[in-house]
């Protein structure tokens, strides 16, 4: 099978969206020895919004890509491929294999109604019993509160309460957390094969993100590709380190809003546990970037389900994910652990690898991300790894797992 499978990884560093679209497609397709691709994955950083727009990026791709090729993709924080590591540009993976069927489904308004988005996506996915799935979901949008602006920390108790009440409205307006964990749970009811998913993202500001579906640029949507014809190996590693700190949480009905931690006022107790000075405005300003390094998690099916700190709303702490337990453990993330865990997954030889890595890995490693690339380059012929705002997997036993701070790959 491997001899018949051809893969091409493309790259463009051009600033102009249309030119970048053409170049990324050309550079991916040239590796297919004249064969038409059976599918085309396209990823780009958010920069093209200012340099022609994403529709022009797609138009550029379609200037080159054979009509009717199944295409999906989205914006990511960065990517790593045969050419290097980038947090600006566009990349693509084109795959051709004679005995392969591919179809793509799309579901809209994922934040407003994830259940309906999944239903819509499944109903538009025209393929019977695929061997595996690749999923992309719209990422989080930090809301802009009237009169306050874009804040992740609202210190006033009164304002916090008001904002808390506004959260369902935010979802209706397709803002707020990505709800990728809920989407994954709903998807599990419909599919019978492994899935690898990513949450689309921007440059860490969580202001906007886009999904690509054929010739359309979408937001607040999910796209799902079903592939039939071969079965890749799926692998996952996480660099989370338990910090041996467990907390009890009291949650509201949404299972996200935490009113008490260890029976104390949630915000004050959180700052105490993390050793942050609530009065220090600088620490408060840095909340969002620090929060990624202090994820909490609970155990389900012997796996850690990470829940991210989302917002401070006065006395309450709002988590970005639903919490299915009343006890959480604090974890940590270090560069050293990332590199040691990466070795486990990247040292195995393969011809082709597509993967999804948490954006925090770039934040943590910075230019040392090249250490990961060098590991992959020594073992893998063609590869494309994207850095998103969260990772989703469904394993062969149909157990869903939404992750952060992890590496998830499929390889052939």
């Amino acid at each position: 099978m491997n001899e018949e499978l051809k893969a091409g990884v493309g790259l463009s560093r051009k600033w102009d969206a249309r030119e970048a679209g053409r170049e990324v497609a050309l550079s991916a397709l040239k590796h297919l020895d004249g064969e038409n691709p059976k599918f085309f994955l396209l990823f780009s950083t958010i920069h093209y919004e200012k340099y022609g727009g994403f529709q022009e990026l797609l138009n550029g791709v379609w200037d080159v890509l054979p009509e009717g090729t199944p295409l999906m993709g989205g914006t990511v924080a960065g990517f790593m491929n045969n050419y290097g590591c980038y947090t600006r540009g566009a990349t693509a993976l084109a795959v051709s294999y004679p005995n392969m069927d591919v179809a793509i489904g799309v579901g809209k308004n994922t934040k407003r109604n994830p259940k309906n988005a999944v239903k819509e996506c499944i109903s538009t996915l025209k393929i019977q019993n695929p061997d595996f799935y690749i999923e992309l979901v719209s990422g989080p949008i930090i809301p802009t509160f009237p009169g306050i602006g874009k804040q992740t920390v609202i210190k006033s108790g009164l304002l916090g309460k008001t904002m808390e009440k506004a959260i369902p409205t935010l979802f209706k307006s397709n803002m707020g957390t990505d709800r990728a964990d809920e989407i994954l749970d709903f998807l599990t009811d419909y599919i019978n094969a492994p899935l690898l998913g990513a949450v689309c993202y921007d440059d860490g500001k969580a202001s906007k993100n886009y999904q690509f579906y054929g010739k359309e640029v979408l937001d607040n949507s999910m796209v799902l590709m079903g592939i039939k014809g071969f079965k890749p190996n799926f692998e996952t590693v996480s660099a989370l380190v338990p910090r041996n700190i467990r907390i009890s949480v009291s949650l509201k009905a949404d299972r996200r809003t935490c009113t008490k931690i260890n029976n104390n006022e949630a915000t004050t107790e959180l700052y105490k546990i993390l050793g942050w000075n609530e009065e220090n405005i600088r620490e408060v300003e840095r909340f969002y970037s620090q929060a990624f390094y202090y994820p909490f998690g609970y155990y389900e099916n012997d796996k850690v389900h990470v829940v991210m700190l989302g917002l401070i709303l006065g006395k309450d702490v709002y988590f970005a994910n639903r919490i299915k337990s009343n006890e959480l453990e604090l974890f940590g993330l270090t560069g050293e652990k990332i590199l040691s865990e990466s070795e486990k997954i990247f040292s195995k030889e393969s011809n082709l690898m597509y993967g999804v890595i948490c954006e925090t890995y770039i934040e943590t490693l910075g230019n040392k991300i090249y250490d990961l690339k060098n590991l992959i380059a020594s073992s893998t012929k063609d590869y494309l790894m994207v850095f998103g705002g969260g990772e989703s997997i469904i394993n062969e036993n149909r157990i869903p797992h939404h992750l952060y701070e992890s590496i998830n790959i499929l390889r052939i």
Partner: protein
Amino acid sequence: MNSDDPLLKILEDLLKLDDIYACMIARRNMVSVMPDTNLFNQKIMDVWDIVSVAMKNVFGIIEEYTSVGLDVMEFRLKNHSVLFFVIPETDNALVAIIPSLANKGLIEVEMENARREIVEILNREEEELVKA
């Protein structure tokens, strides 16, 4: 310095990133390559003088430790961070001024790509000189 200079083009590319307020290739007491300062973000103007002085002192350290593998340095001043990516086997560094709350990891990746391109250009120029 003309606008076709490939080193200048690398710097101008970096400056297009929202969070890179200013950048240059510099060494102690001397700026080697600098884009048109009109392209710099105006937000750095109130700290430019003090940052310039601090940079001179940092280059003293770079000169001293480059030979033992000093690779990247950073200092934070007021609301800005200054990143120094040392150009190997030289006392030059690619310097960028960014807001201190920027996503430094993402910026570092593009700084690293810029440094690699700079090294490539310098090596090519050296080869051409040897041939000549």
